C-alpha cells in the first residue's frame, strides 16, 4: 500500500489530478486506488489537498493520508503559504515537486528532510504542450518517475479524462516524465 498526498493551489487541478491518477491505477494498471479529496472553501489561489491510497488489492482505508509515502507539490510557493508539506513525513517519504529552481529543491530538502526528491518544471511542460498554466497532467507524468504508476497508464488515463484536450495533456504528461530529474 502506498499513501500519497497532493498539495496544490486552487486552479492548478490537483483534485482532478487525484481522480485521473485513480483512473490510471484502477483501469490501466489493474490495481486499486481510492481518492479522498479535502474540499475546503475553495477559491483560486488558496491551498488545496488531495489524498490518494494505492494498493494491489482493494483499498479498505477511506480517510485522509496522515503518513504519506509520496508527497506531490504542484507549486513550490506552497512552502511560503503557511502549509507544512512535511507533516507526517519520514526521511523515506518521496517528494515530487513542480519547480524550476535548484534553490527551492534545496529548501524543501533542508526544511523537511526529504532524501529522495523528483523535480520537474511541470508549469513549463504544461505551457509548452497545452499552452495553459495548469500543471496537473504534467505532475502526473512526473509522479510516474516514482514507480507508483507507469507513464503509459498515466498517459492513457489523461487522454481519457481530458476529453478534447486529452492528446495535448497526454503529451504534457510524457514530456514532464522525460524531463523529471532525481534532484
Amino acid at each position, binding site marked *: 500500500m502506498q499513501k500519497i498526498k497532493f498539495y496544490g493551489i486552487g486552479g492548478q487541478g490537483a483534485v482532478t489530478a487525484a481522480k485521473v491518477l485513480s483512473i490510471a491505477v*484502477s*483501469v490501466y494498471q489493474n490495481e486499486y486506488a481510492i481518492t*479522498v479529496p479535502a*474540499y475546503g472553501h475553495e477559491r483560486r489561489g488558496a491551498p488545496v489537498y488531495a489524498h490518494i491510497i494505492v494498493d494491489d488489492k482493494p483499498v479498505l482505508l*477511506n480517510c485522509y493520508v496522515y503518513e504519506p509515502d509520496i508527497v506531490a507539490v504542484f507549486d513550490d510557493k506552497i512552502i511560503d503559504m503557511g502549509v507544512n508539506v512535511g507533516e507526517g513525513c519520514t526521511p523515506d517519504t518521496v517528494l515530487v515537486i513542480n519547480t524550476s529552481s535548484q534553490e527551492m529543491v534545496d529548501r524543501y530538502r533542508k526544511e523537511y528532510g526529504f532524501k529522495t526528491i523528483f523535480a520537474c518544471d511541470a508549469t513549463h511542460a504544461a505551457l509548452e504542450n497545452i499552452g495553459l498554466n495548469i500543471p496537473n497532467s504534467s505532475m502526473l507524468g512526473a509522479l510516474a518517475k516514482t514507480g507508483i504508476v507507469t507513464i503509459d497508464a498515466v498517459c492513457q488515463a489523461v487522454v481519457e479524462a481530458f476529453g478534447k484536450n486529452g492528446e495535448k495533456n497526454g503529451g504534457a504528461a510524457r514530456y514532464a516524465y522525460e524531463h523529471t530529474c532525481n534532484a
Partner: protein
Amino acid sequence: MAVKMFDGNGAAVEAIRLARPGVIAAYPITPQSSIAEHLADCVAEGKIDAEYVRVESEHSAMSVSIGACLTGVRVATATASVGLALMHEVCGVTAGCRVPIVMPVVNRSLVAPWSLWCDHSDTMAERDTGWLQFYASTVQEILDLQLCAYRISEHEDVLTPSMVCFDGFYLSHSMQRVDTPSDEEAWDFVGPYVRKNMYLDPKDVMFINDLCPTVEHTEMKYQQKVGFDKAAGVAKDVFAEYEKRFGRKLSAVESYRLEDAEVAVVTIGSMSGTGKYVVNQLREKGIKAGLLRICMFRPFPAEEIREALQNVKVIGVMDRSSGLGAFQGPVCSEVKAALLGTSCQVYDFIGGIAGRDISDGSFRKIFGMLTDAAAGKELAGTTWFDVREDAMNLREVEMPC
C-alpha cells in the same frame, strides 16, 4: 459488466440512467450538485429520455416527483443536508401516499454552524419519516443499492420510498472503480415502472393527501408499518437475486471478523472500510476485534444485529451525528435496543461531525477504550471522540458589561 470509473455522484447518476426515469426534478446543492447537473446533461444529450423540471426548491422537487410518479412513470431526484430538511414535509407525503421514489441523499451536516461537509445529521433527522434508508460504504455500493432500491421500494408489498445515503466528499467525490452492468442487464433486473396503487390521471386530476380522520389515521400508519415489515424480507430476496445476477453480495448488515470477537465496533457509511483496516491490524496483534456494518438502517435490522453481536462482550457504536440532548446517538440507541436482554456492554462514540475525518487513528483509540472496558475499566456511556481540547474556548464572546 464493465469496469468504469465513477465518483459517488457519478455512480448515482449511472444507476438513475440505467433505471430509465421519465421525469427528473432536482435542485442542486453541495455536495449533491453534480448529480443534478449530470442528470441534466444526460437529458440534453438524449442518454435519458425524460422531462427535466427545473424547480425552485427541494420542496418543489419532491412535490413534482410525487405528482409525476403517481401518473405512472419512474422519477428521479436527489438532495443533501438543508435541501433534505426543506423537503422534510413533502418526504412525509411521499411515504404516506405510498409513492415508491428512490432518492440518493449525499450526507452533509445540518446547520448551524454552516457546513458543507459530511455527517449523518441530515438523514438521521429523516429516519422516522417513513422512508427506507440504505447507507453505502463504497462507490460500488451506491450503484448496487440504488438499483436494488427500485425493486424493493416498488414491490407491491412495500410501496415505500427509499433514501440511498452516501457520505459527502468521502464517497460523493471519491473516484473509485465500479463494476457496472450493461444497460440491458440492468434493465432486465430493474424492469419498467408499474403503478400498483393510487394514480393520477392528468386528464382527470384529483386532490391527493387530503384530510384523513382520526378513525382511519392509525390504520393508515399501520399499513405503512406493515410495508416496512415486508420490506425486510423483500430486501433479502432482492439482494440475493442481485448477487446471483451480478456477483456482489449485499445485506442489511455486514459482519466482519465477528465470529470470536471480544470487542467490536458498529459502523455505518464510508468509515466502515477504515474500521475494517484497523480490525485487521488489531487481529495481527492478537486482539480479538470485529466490526458490524449497518447497511440498511430502515427498516432497522434488529434481529440480524442481535444475532451478529450477542456474543461480543464490549461494543462501541459509531454515531456520525451529534444526537443533541439524547441519552445516546441514534445508531447506538437502536443497536442497544436490539441487544436488550443480552450481556453485551454497549458504548456510544460520537464524532466525524461536519467533515472531521474518522481516521485509522480514531478507530485505534476507540478500540483501545473498548479493550480497556473489557478489562474492567470504567467507560462513559457516550464519548465524543477527536474533540479539540480548546472546545469550550472556541469563538468565545466577551460580554461588554
